[in-house]
């Protein structure tokens, strides 16, 4: 598959605006966003007016729009980094590409700027191979193939549900790790895309992600909010929780999740040591989540994504609800999310 074959009409680029001034961000991405429709969703807690440069095909959604669609009680579901999920909700396209507003295009080892949007779409359009690991990574890319010993019956792969990209410069490390290694920056460009095997769990980062909305849209749930959730990634876990749900549901439905390229360049923002000062309950919640997801089995009868989310929410409430109120809230949010999804997307 090549860049030339991408149908731009099938893609929405959804940007969550946690910063009011998007001039630098959008200007840096102009070449690669050109020809695509953009959805910019403003964090409902951001007071200043958004500053968006000319020349983009963009729809902007703010707190007012959220309240029109959802009623005023629901906009907290979309505050902070979760504002982008509102964009996922109202989009009408097949694919969504979402990048944090503090990231710019990265350079590959040859010095060329990386077209992250196109790479994501290529990842989503080509099959995933979660049932058997290919040691030469993505078998469908130029110059590679399935290796000796790879079962032939598995070579057509399965639909790709999500494409998880990576980050040069400031990698998506947690606060304790970055605080300990203040100078560490990711300079390693790993030239590979691969499918994360079925049943394997992984921490999916929302910083640079794309997914097939038609296939798994409802599974990207804005659900887990930390009590002290902040406006830097070190103070959130919403994407990691969302990713655990997404991966589990993808495994259940026989879809694949890819990881690797494309890279984006993530700029410096925030202070890891500062974030560390907040009581970081995220660690505790992850520890509880892992055995839950490990042993979770969705019922065979859950064949639609929406049903999977509802079943997952039920299990979260039953098995994790008593451990921490954050889980009960997450379960309720997941149910609410599906109600919203169904109402917005049936009338759309």
């Amino acid at each position, binding site marked *: 598959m090549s860049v030339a074959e991408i149908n731009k009409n099938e893609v929405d680029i959804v940007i969550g605006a946690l910063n009011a001034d998007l001039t630098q961000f959008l200007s840096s991405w102009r070449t690669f966003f050109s020809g695509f429709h953009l959805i910019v969703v403003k964090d409902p807690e951001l007071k200043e007016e958004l500053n968006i440069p000319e020349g983009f095909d963009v729809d902007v959604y703010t707190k007012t729009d959220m309240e029109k669609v959802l009623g005023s009680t629901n906009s907290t579901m979309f505050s902070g980094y979760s504002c982008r999920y509102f964009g996922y909700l109202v989009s009408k396209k097949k694919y969504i590409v979402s990048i944090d507003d503090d990231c710019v295009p990265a350079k590959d*080892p040859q010095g060329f700027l990386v077209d992250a949007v196109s790479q994501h779409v290529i990842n989503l359009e080509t099959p995933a191979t979660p049932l*058997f*690991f*290919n*040691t*030469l*990574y993505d078998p469908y890319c130029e*110059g*590679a*193939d*399935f*290796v*000796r*010993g*790879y*079962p*032939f*019956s*598995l070579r057509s792969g399965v639909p790709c549900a999500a494409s*998880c990209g*990576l980050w040069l410069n400031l*990698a*998506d*490390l*947690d606060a304790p*790790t970055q605080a300990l*290694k203040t100078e*560490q920056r*990711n*300079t*390693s*460009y*790993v*030239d*590979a895309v691969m499918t*994360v*095997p*079925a*049943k*394997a*769990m*992984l*921490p*999916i*980062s929302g910083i640079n992600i794309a997914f097939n909305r038609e296939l798994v849209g409802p599974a990207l749930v804005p659900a887990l909010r930390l009590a002290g959730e902040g406006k830097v*990634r*070190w103070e959130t*876990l919403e*994407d*990691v929780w969302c*990713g655990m749900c997404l991966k589990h549901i993808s495994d259940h439905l026989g879809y694949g999740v890819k*990881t690797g390229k494309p890279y984006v360049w993530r700029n410096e923002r925030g202070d890891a040591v500062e974030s560390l000062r907040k009581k970081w309950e*995220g*660690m505790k919640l*992850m*520890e509880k989540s*892992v055995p839950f997801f490990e042993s979770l089995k969705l019922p065979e009868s859950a064949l639609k994504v929406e049903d999977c989310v509802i079943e997952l929410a039920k299990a979260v409430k039953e098995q994790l609800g008593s451990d921490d109120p954050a889980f009960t809230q997450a379960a309720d949010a997941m149910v609410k999310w599906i109600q919203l999804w169904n109402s917005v997307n049936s009338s759309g």
Partner: protein
Amino acid sequence: MVDPANTVGIPVNPTPLLTDVLDIVIPTIRNLDFLEMWRPFLQPYHLIIVQDGDPSKTIAVPEGFDYELYNRNDINRILGPKASCISFKDSACRCFGYMVSKKKYIFTIDDDCFVAKDPSGKAVNALEQHIKNLLCPSTPLFFNTLYDPYREGADFVRGYPFSMREGVSTAVSHGLWLNIPDYDAPTQLVKPKERNTRYVDAVMTIPKGTLFPMCGMNLAFDRELIGPAMYFGLMGDGQPIGRYDDMWAGWCIKVICDHLGLGVKTGLPYIYHSKASNPFVNLKKEYKGIFWQEDIIPFFQNVKLSKEAVTVQQCYIELSKMVKEKLSSIDPYFDKLADAMVTWIEAWDELNPATKA
């Protein structure tokens, strides 16, 4: 296109790691000229050469290498009737080298594998990278999106559970190949000119519960942790199948590693694979395997070893019983293979009494 490294002028590694606890096992039927190129990295180590084919032929080993060499006569003499489990006229015979070794670690490499270059042009010391892989933990229980978290410049990403950050012991380090990729015969026939020129600068752990095609061309393992499971099966002369030796071992070691809580890594190091084997010859060897693996894979995917199987040997014997029970119906070959798996363990324990748990 990609070239091998030119190692002329590179001095022998003055600080080689683990020289007294690592053996290099090389199967060969032709010659060992390729070792000249590996001299800077491999000369400090002890070699176990397993000579396949005609035992009356003399294999010349380049000057300066410390080695022991076994031909078919030696294998028959040492194992007696149990020698039947060691393949003839197939590089699968290399596993005899694993059995006679007394070291903790094994590095095995094919005699058509040269030294590769990294993207900066530097010669890759594959053995050094394998050692690094084996000495630091694996992370099979949760996938790290930045790959090996213990590498210089990397770490665990946000959301990676802290309770899993110590990892588990690494049993196997599976390296890759530039130039001639390890394709099966059908793929070779369709893409005879394809060369692997992509240097993917990563090592990663293959998640628990996931199978992979293990290639024996560039492989290292902890013999104490997993050695008895590294049997390369019955291939070659008198057998209905070939080129599935390392595959078979790979499926066996992976289910056993998963069961025992050990890790398997893949990725770096690269070697430069210089020779493309004849795809028509390969097709004849692989032919049955292509069909059989459709049944073999689900078999391995569903294997459940018992709680009582706590040593590698116990796991392997249990596996051999399941092979006999579940795969014999595909072909009587599997009945023979299951018996050979038992013979292998008996031979292993005879030659390695101290390693029994």
